[in-house]
């Protein structure tokens, strides 16, 4: 008797994002019609760009990797009730610290790669540490400090890349950048492995070691949150501060830990771009991924498994936008509008569904 009702609730709560997605797609088509394009062509363009070939779908997965890491970084913080808006800054700093380890340390590859991953995590955690300290010990709200620290981070890496760490050689690229990362630290691709499994992705698609990092981190986050005492404390503090306090949970410690963990994860967002794609660090690495992480965490309900789908959805929408632009001539800004609408609708649908389930449960309990 017990199990089926639990499943019924899970199914109901999974329906919310599906409902949001479908609604947003309908709105997309209405917009397409409104600007005088053929909706059939639009759908075809979206499918062509995202799922028409193994490589196209591989690209969706590839672009989802940094989005996923950003999503779990934010989700972990949100689970613990810490509003880490500073994932963006932690990503910039973490990436740079990882790159420094990749440029200046001389190690064999099998050690060098884990070392740059750990340095990137340390860099992100370091950048989260000051807002964490200010929140817990001084009561300064983290939303303010982390936003400030985002700006500081951006100008700090700008300075570091331009002056002390500059590797600009006047060669083919005018982009300010560091020296090249040593080959022992570069991330190889897993494409051969997937091709051997029968997935015919092209060699230009980046399915690199950062995919492994993302999967491992996703598992760790899930395990910590749901299987350990510490994760219970994180969730408890994120749910009810006062009740946690009176249960003897040491709130300050839990919040500092949450913040550092979130920052450490954020430090990993740039791995793919820095170590697999570019091979050097520049402050021109993709901006805004940290902020995308907020929306992704929200849609994935701060759950490391939900965030997988949310990150894929985001990546899908990005590619769909390119498809509309390329094949139908619809401005990319339209697809940004759709993305925004979809987030809004899914969040609303989530909230409505959560309340509905709560009411059902209340009635069941009498």
């Amino acid at each position, binding site marked *: 008797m*017990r199990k089926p009702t*639990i499943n019924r609730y899970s199914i109901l709560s999974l329906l919310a994002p599906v409902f949001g997605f479908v609604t947003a797609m309908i709105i997309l088509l209405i917009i397409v019609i409104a600007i005088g394009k053929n909706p059939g062509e639009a759908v075809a363009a979206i499918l062509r760009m995202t799922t028409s070939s193994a490589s196209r779908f591989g690209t969706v997965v590839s672009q989802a990797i940094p989005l996923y890491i950003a999503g779990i970084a934010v989700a972990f913080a949100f689970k613990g009730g810490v509003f880490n808006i500073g994932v963006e800054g932690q990503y910039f700093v973490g990436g740079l610290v990882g790159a420094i380890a990749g440029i200046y340390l001389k190690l064999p590859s099998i050690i060098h790669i884990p070392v740059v991953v750990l340095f990137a995590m340390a860099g992100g955690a370091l950048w989260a540490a000051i807002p964490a300290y200010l929140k817990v010990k001084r009561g300064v709200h983290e939303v303010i400090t982390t936003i400030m620290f985002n700006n500081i981070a951006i100008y700090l890496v700008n300075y570091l890349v331009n002056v002390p760490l500059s590797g600009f050689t006047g060669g083919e690229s005018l982009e300010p950048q560091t020296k090249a990362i040593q080959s022992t630290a570069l991330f190889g691709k897993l494409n051969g492995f997937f091709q051997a499994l029968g997935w015919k992705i092209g060699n230009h698609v980046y399915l690199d070691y950062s995919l492994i990092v993302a999967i491992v981190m996703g598992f760790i986050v899930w395990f910590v949150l749901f*299987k*350990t*005492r*510490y*994760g*219970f*404390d994180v*969730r*408890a503090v994120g*749910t*009810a501060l*006062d*009740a*946690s*306090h*009176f*249960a*003897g*949970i*040491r709130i300050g410690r839990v919040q500092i830990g949450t913040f550092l963990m979130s920052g450490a994860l954020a430090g990993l967002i740039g791995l793919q771009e820095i170590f697999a794609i570019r091979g050097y660090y520049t402050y021109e690495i993709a901006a805004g991924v940290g902020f995308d992480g907020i929306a992704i965490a929200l849609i994935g309900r701060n759950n490391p498994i939900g965030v997988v789908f949310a990150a894929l959805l985001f990546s899908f929408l990005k590619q769909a936008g390119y498809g509309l632009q390329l094949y139908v001539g619809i401005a990319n800004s339209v697809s940004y509008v759709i993305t925004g609408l979809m987030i809004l609708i899914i969040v609303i649908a989530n909230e409505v569904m959560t309340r509905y389930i*709560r*009411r*059902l*449960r*209340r*009635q*069941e*309990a*009498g």
Partner: protein
Amino acid sequence: MSLLEMKDITKVFPGVVANDHVSFDLQKGEVHALVGENGAGKTTLMKILYGLYGPDEGSISINDSVVQIANPRDAIRKGIGMVHQHFMLVPVFTVTENIVLGEENRYADYSTSSRAASPLRAIMKWLVLDTHGARDRIQELMDKNQLVVDPDAPVEELSVGLQQRVEILKILFRGAEILVFDEPTAVLTPQEVRDLFETFRELKAQGKGIIFISHKLDEVLDIADRITVVRRGKVIKTMPRKGATKAGIAELMVGKPVLLDVDNPPASPGDVVLQVEHVSLRDERGTSVLHDVSFEIHAGEIYGVAGVEGNGQSELVRAIADRVPLDDGNIRLAGQDVKALDVRQRREAGIAHIPEDRHRFGLLMPFSLADNMSLGRHHRPPFVNRFQMVQTREVHRFAREAIAEFDVRTPSEDVPALALSGGNQQKAIIAREMSGKPSLLLASQPTRGVDIGAQEFIYKQIIAAKKEGIAILLVSADLDEIMSLSDRVGVIYKGRIIKTFDIKDTSKEQVGFYMMGEEENAEADN
């Protein structure tokens, strides 16, 4: 002619029939008590009357003509006034300002501008605050109803009883004929209750009708002319006071006989467990909230703290349960100074805590009952293994046992805490706190918002704890609860324990007298 008649009112919320063909009427010059457990449908019925919900079926008539009540403003216009359980007053405003709020210029005459052209007068009426006429009207209402309050005192400086008078004046000022009181006595001392009932009699004499919602059956039997009992959305019975008994009403409310008298044997106190020594404490703004508080509690003894809410009870409990920076004094548990210990260390030293606000302080509402049952000990074996991994099976096994032992009514231990009724939530907290084998139990408002059945159970548990030799600090706004459970009573007033009684040497009236802070008068009387 009925002043008010609510006929066959039905209100369905998805899956719940909150009111099922409820009929209720009120005559002029009558106090009609509405009693029932939490969730029985009293509040829904009153919200319908006040225009907050529309009924699905049924009709409301005032003075025999059918009316539609669209919203609270409409209800007020039709002569319905409500004194809410939580006062709706602006603390920094004066009594007069609070009474006229929203109706500021109702009695304005603008005599100074009487020669002005009428359009100007209309603008003035809209623009310029003139409470002179209102002041006269308020004075008249105060005199007529013996509701004396200083009209220029800021409301925040008034006692709870006086604030309630302001609420009553507010609705009378708006011309209420039907007065609804939602648990008005919950926050009052016995003396203030007597004054309130005096006002009720005065209002009755003027032909007004009063709906009195209460849990306290003694008071219902004292003041009501008729009593209506609701249970599960239905009217079970409407009866005259004559012939009604407390046990009879309780049985109608619950649906089965209820043991109202607490079987509480005298304490056989053991060693001293808790010593509070000269404790003084300030809040964040630097205001003194506890001043030189000292008392001891022995093993197997219930020490009750009586007082009007907001006199330092919450802070006192917090100072014992939590590490707060004391201005002065010591807190000892079994002789050991616990000042430096944080919540976790105090719990481990043997302090259990039933917090005053269970939703905020006691439970992780969206978490499962199972998680909530081990909360506070969840960091120790058997709930975690040595790698600090949660042992879900143990958590569930423990929860199932505790649910059975403490009679928590729930479909399973997987249900989130927020899905349970107040009484069952409170039972879960008590189960959790008692299973830690404490030496001291802090019970703060242990039966607030729980129904009679759960109340009976909670009293039994507290008394059982006492028999086991646990020292118990009981804080309650319900003086009856303090009187029937405590072995000794300390009266707290403005952060001081102004008097301590042995329960057998005192009476409810005497304790209530001190709760008003009238220590000096009492000294003079003795």
